[in-house]
C-alpha cells in the first residue's frame, strides 16, 4: 500500500522548542522579565526522558545539521508532510515546562508553548493540529489553560506525561479530565517521566535503555490507575490515547488485569465489567513503536489478541527512529485493519478532526 495515497492521520509527531528564548515573545510581561532576570531563557528545558542525541530519538537522515530535531517547520515539511501526505498531523511538544516544580512557572511556560505552537506551526500549515501542553501537577492551572485554548479547534487533545508525581487516575487529576471531556478533547498520555519517582519499584536503573524499555510497564501502571480509580466511569465520554507506549504488551496486560479484577473487584465496586472491555472502548494507542515480534505471522496473533480494530492509531513518532523510509506500518498488520488505523480510528477518537 502506498501510504501517502491514503492521506493518513499522523497522531504523533514531535515538535521541539529550539530554545527557551523563542518563548519570550509568547509570555506575559511579568513572566518574560522573570525568565530573563533568572537567566532561564538561556536554559534548555529538555526532558531527561528524551535525550535528543540518543540514536533512538532521531532517525539519522532526519537529524538536522544544527539545532534540535523537529524544531523547524521546514524539517517537518520535508520529513513528514511531503513524504506521508497526512491529512492531519498531531504535534506533541515534550518539554520540561510541563514539570517545573513551581506550578506558576510551569503554567506560564506551558501557556507560552501553546501560544508558540499556534503562531509558529498551526498558522503555517492547515494540516497541523496540536496537543495542549499543561502543568498536569497543578490541576487548577491546567484546567485554566485548557479553557483558554479550547476555542481554537486546532488544539485537539490534552497532553500528559505517563509518569509524574502521582498515578494519573488519582482524583486530584479529575478536574483536568472534566475539562477535557467538556471540550471534546481526548487525553493524550505520552511516554516519559518527570522522575519524581524512580522508573519502577526497583529504584533507579543505570542506563537509558532501561528507562526507555520501562516506559511500557509504566503504561501498564497508568492503565491500572485510570481504570481502578474509576476515571472512565466518572467521565463517560472521555477517550485516552497512549502515545509511544509500544503496543504488543497490551494482550498480556488484559489477561492479568482481568484476572486480578475477578479476584479483588469488591475493593473497587464501581468496576462492574472487565477492565479489558473498558480499555477497548475508551483507550487508543499510537502504533510507533509497535514492538513487533520477529516473525510476521505472530503479529496477526497479537492483533487478534488485542481484539478490537478501533484501538490503533497511525503515527510516525517523528523524529524518533523506529523505521526506515516511509515504512511506518509495522509489517504483518492485516489489510483489513489498515483503513481504520490510518484514518477512521483517529476521526472517531478526535472529534475536533471532523
Amino acid at each position, binding site marked *: 500500500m502506498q501510504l501517502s495515497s491514503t492521506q493518513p492521520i499522523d497522531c504523533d509527531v514531535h515538535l521541539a522548542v529550539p530554545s527557551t528564548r523563542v518563548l519570550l515573545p509568547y509570555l506575559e510581561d511579568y513572566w518574560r522579565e522573570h525568565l530573563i532576570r533568572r537567566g532561564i531563557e538561556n536554559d534548555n528545558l529538555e526532558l531527561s526522558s528524551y535525550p535528543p542525541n540518543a540514536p533512538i530519538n532521531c532517525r539519522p537522515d532526519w537529524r538536522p545539521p544544527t539545532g534540535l530535531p523537529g524544531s523547524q517547520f521546514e524539517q517537518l515539511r520535508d520529513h513528514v508532510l511531503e513524504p506521508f501526505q497526512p491529512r492531519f498531523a498531531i504535534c506533541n511538544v515534550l518539554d520540561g515546562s510541563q514539570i517545573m516544580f513551581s506550578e506558576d512557572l510551569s503554567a506560564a511556560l506551558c501557556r507560552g508553548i501553546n501560544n508558540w505552537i499556534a503562531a509558529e506551526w498551526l498558522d503555517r500549515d492547515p494540516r497541523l493540529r496540536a496537543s495542549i501542553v499543561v502543568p498536569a501537577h497543578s490541576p487548577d492551572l491546567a484546567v485554566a489553560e485548557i479553557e483558554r485554548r479550547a476555542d481554537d479547534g486546532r488544539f485537539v487533545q490534552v497532553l500528559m506525561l505517563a509518569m509524574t508525581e502521582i498515578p494519573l487516575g488519582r482524583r486530584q487529576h479529575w478536574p483536568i479530565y472534566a475539562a477535557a471531556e467538556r471540550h471534546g478533547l481526548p487525553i493524550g498520555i505520552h511516554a516519559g517521566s518527570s522522575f519524581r519517582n524512580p522508573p519502577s519499584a526497583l529504584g533507579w536503573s543505570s542506563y537509558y*535503555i532501561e528507562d526507555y524499555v520501562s516506559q511500557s510497564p509504566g503504561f501498564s501502571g497508568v492503565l491500572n490507575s485510570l481504570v481502578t480509580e474509576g476515571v472512565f466511569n466518572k467521565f463517560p465520554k472521555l477517550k485516552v490515547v497512549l502515545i509511544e507506549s509500544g503496543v504488543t504488551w497490551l494482550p498480556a496486560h488484559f489477561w492479568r488485569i482481568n484476572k486480578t479484577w475477578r479476584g479483588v473487584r469488591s475493593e473497587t465496586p464501581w468496576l462492574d465489567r472487565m477492565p479489558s472491555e473498558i480499555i477497548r472502548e475508551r483507550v487508543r494507542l499510537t502504533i510507533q513503536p509497535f514492538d513487533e515480534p520477529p516473525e510476521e505471522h505472530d503479529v496477526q496473533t497479537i492483533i487478534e489478541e488485542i481484539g478490537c480494530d478501533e484501538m490503533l492509531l497511525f503515527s510516525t513518532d517523528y523524529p524518533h527512529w523506529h523505521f526506515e523510509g516511509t515504512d511506518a506500518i509495522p509489517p504483518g498488520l492485516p489489510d483489513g485493519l489498515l483503513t481504520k488505523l490510518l484514518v477512521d480510528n483517529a476521526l472517531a477518537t478526535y472529534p475536533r478532526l471532523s
Partner: protein
Amino acid sequence: MNMTVMDRKPEAINQSYLGFIDCDVHPFFKSPDEFNAFLPERWREHRRTIGGRTRVGLAKASNYPRMSPGNGQRMDAWPPDGTHPGSDLPFMQQQLLDLFNVSYGLLAPLVGGSGGERNVEFGAAMATATNEWQLARWCDPDPRLKAAVLVNVEHQSAAIAEIEKRAGDRRFVQVQIPPRGLEPLGRRRYWPILEACAANGFPISLHLGGAGGHPSTGGGHPSFYHEEHPSYVQSMQTLVTSLVCEGVFEHIPNLKIVLVEGGFAWLPALCWRLDRAWKRLHAEVPFLRQKPSEYVRQSIWVTTQPIEEPERPRDMLSTLEWIGIDRVMFSTDYPHWDQDDPRYAFKVALPEEWKRKIYSENARALYQLE
C-alpha cells in the same frame, strides 16, 4: 455485589498433574516467637524492643490490605486449630503435598522480614534464623520440602557468608532475594552476591515483594490492592530489563534466575521491546554481545502462578512457545488467595510433553532434584 463474571468451563482437565513439583509454597509460623530459638540473645532483645524496620508507613500490616483475612490467604487454608494458613505441616500435607502427591515443594518464606530490614545486621541475623527455621520446621520433618537461602543483599559480606555456608546442603536448592530493593538487582553493587550464588550452584529465586520503599509504579503510589497486585508484573519486567541491560549475564554466564509469582505472559512482548531498543541503543551497553532476548532465553526461568488467562484459551500455547517450553515451571502459591490449582490452571489442553516439562521436568533439571 454478587454476579457471575466468568461463565467458562476449562476446555480440558489435565489428568496427569499428580507428582508435580511446586515451585512456590509459602510456609508460615504459628507464633513469631518460633524464630527466637534461632537468634542470639542480642537480636532476640532487639526484636522484642525495636522490632523490624521497613520503608513503609505501617509497621506490621500491609499498606495494601488484601481482600481476605491473614493478608490474603485462601479462605479454606486456615488449619483446624485456628493457626495461620501455611503454618501447620500436617494440614499443608493434606491440602497440597499429599492431595497431589507433590514430588517436591519449593519453599518461599515471606516471613521474618530479613530481606527488607533497614538494620542490615539484624536483617542478616533474621535471614540466618529463617533459614534454620525452614530446616527444623519444614524440610527435616518432610523432605519433599526444599528450602531457599534467605539473605539481606544490603549486607554483602553476611549474604555471601550465608550462601557459602549453605552450599552443598541439598536441603537448600536456591537463594531467594526480594526484587523490590533499594536498587535494581542488576546494578554492579550486587554482583558479588550474584557471583556467589552462581559459584555455589544456586539458582536465584526472585519472588515478588521486597521493601525498598519506592512506589510500586513509576508514576507513584497507587491507591488500591487492585493496582498493587498487577504492579508486581511491572516489577518483574523492570527486573528482567535490569539484569539483562546491566550485563549481569555477560559477566556471570552460568547465573540462573527464576521469577516467582509474577505470571509470565508478559515476557515475550518485553523481549521484543528489549531487542528493538537494543538495536538502537547498543552503543550505550557495548558489553552486551547478543540480543537481550537471547540472554533471557538462556538464563531466566519463570513460574506460572498467577497464571494469565487469555481470553481465547489457545493463546496460552503461543505464549508458552514464545517463552520456551523448557523455561516454564508450575507453581501453586499455596496458601495464598490467588493460588493456582494444577488441575485447572491451564484452560487449554497442553501437549503431553509440554505438561511433563512444565509440571516436573524443567524444575527437576534446574534444581538437580532426584
